[in-house]
């Protein structure tokens, strides 16, 4: 790892100020950033640690409205008793990220700001139609995830929370790479007051996306049988040593089916 200057922010405003130092980056759980720095894929001059800011932590459930602080760890999301009642699919999804030690450190804000094309949270937030709250504005998930490792966040902008209305039904299913355990394909489906949404991670050349085909089929009937014989186009899907685009296209239909079955269970 190259030399770096560490700063522990005392508040979000302080973090915004510290971010103006050289080529500074925010540090939350560090589960992606620190490995990237160790391999010198990332070499920020300064790190601004926001993981201890109490304002950024915790899950709040008020009626159907769920708000999760950006520095809430995957473990805390997976174990939150109120969330398990309001939106068990999201708690379940968080329990499938990485391994227990990673879940104790990694955070929802860090995951979405990084927008890894195989990360789980981007699919969840897109399917939930969530709002991403920053220190400057609110951004709809549909406009937040821009491409591979790319988001709508501007220079110096800090994710502080995410918020969504708990849907009537939701579930997440992923097909993992047997070695890395990252999603080769993950599908998060929801059925809420604005209809059906289905978001796919792990497969898109431009990162997370909503599957028109899955959504159209499920809009007719929110049942696994509605996806029988569904053809998802392979165009725009990744082909790599783990899986071809055709294989991923097929997996999208399979995972969507499993997710709908789980959502209806």
């Amino acid at each position, binding site marked *: 790892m190259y*030399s770096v200057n*560490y700063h522990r922010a005392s508040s979000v405003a302080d973090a915004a100020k510290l971010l103006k130092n050289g080529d500074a980056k925010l540090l939350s759980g*560090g589960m992606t950033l620190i*490995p990237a720095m160790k391999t010198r894929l990332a070499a920020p001059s300064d790190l601004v*640690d926001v993981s201890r800011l109490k304002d950024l932590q915790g899950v709040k459930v008020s009626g159907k409205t769920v708000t999760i602080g950006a520095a809430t760890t995957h473990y805390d999301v997976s174990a939150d008793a109120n969330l398990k009642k309001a939106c068990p699919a999201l708690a379940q999804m968080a329990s499938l990220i990485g391994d*227990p030690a990673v879940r104790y*450190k990694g955070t929802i804000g860090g995951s979405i700001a990084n927008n890894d094309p195989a990360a789980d949270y981007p699919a969840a937030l897109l399917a939930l139609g969530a709002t991403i709250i920053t220190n400057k504005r609110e951004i709809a998930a549909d406009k937040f995830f821009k491409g591979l490792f790319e988001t709508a966040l501007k220079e110096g902008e800090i994710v502080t929370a995410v918020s969504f209305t708990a849907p009537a039904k939701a579930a997440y299913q992923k097909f993992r790479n047997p070695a890395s*355990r990252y999603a080769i394909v993950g599908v998060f489906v929801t059925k809420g007051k604005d209809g059906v949404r289905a978001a796919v991670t792990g497969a898109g050349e431009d990162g997370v996306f909503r599957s028109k085909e899955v959504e159209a089929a499920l809009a007719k009937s929110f049942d696994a049988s509605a996806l029988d014989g569904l053809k998802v186009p392979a165009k725009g899907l990744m082909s790599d040593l783990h899986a071809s685009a055709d294989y991923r296209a097929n997996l999208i239909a399979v995972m969507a089916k499993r997710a709908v079955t789980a959502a209806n269970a």
Partner: protein
Amino acid sequence: MSDVSLTVNGKRVSGSAEDRTLLVHFLREHLGLTGTHVGCDTSQCGACVVHVDGRAVKSCTMLAVQASGSTIVTIEGLADGAELHPVQAAFKEHHGLQCGFCTPGMIMTATDMIARHPEGLDEATVRAELEGNICRCTGYHNIVKAILAASETMAKGAKGKAKQAA
């Protein structure tokens, strides 16, 4: 350089380290606590697992300065004098180690796992929870046995204590 102050295995310690120093290197090289191992160095194998503020994390993927102010328990801090911690005793009893390299991380993960499942553990849960710990000797069978046995011993211990208190 930054000052790093920690409570490690019940003792307050402090030192100066480069900001890029990983917690595992601070523990091993500054404090001489070489029980915590560096295996893969890519946060996959879990040989470096220690408890930071009560949570089992990978000390190769955390800066020492990030942990400053925290309470840390390493494998050296588990035994009560000459008496092994129940998880250590179970690993000995059930031969839960072969070369022993992954053992400190396995045991720190296991103690955290048992604490998080006061209702008890089954084999499937133990295997799933060991996702982040790799045994290069592939000796998982006895590791799982040891963790299940320790979980039972500790549950009995907790009940015994509750009775004494009553």
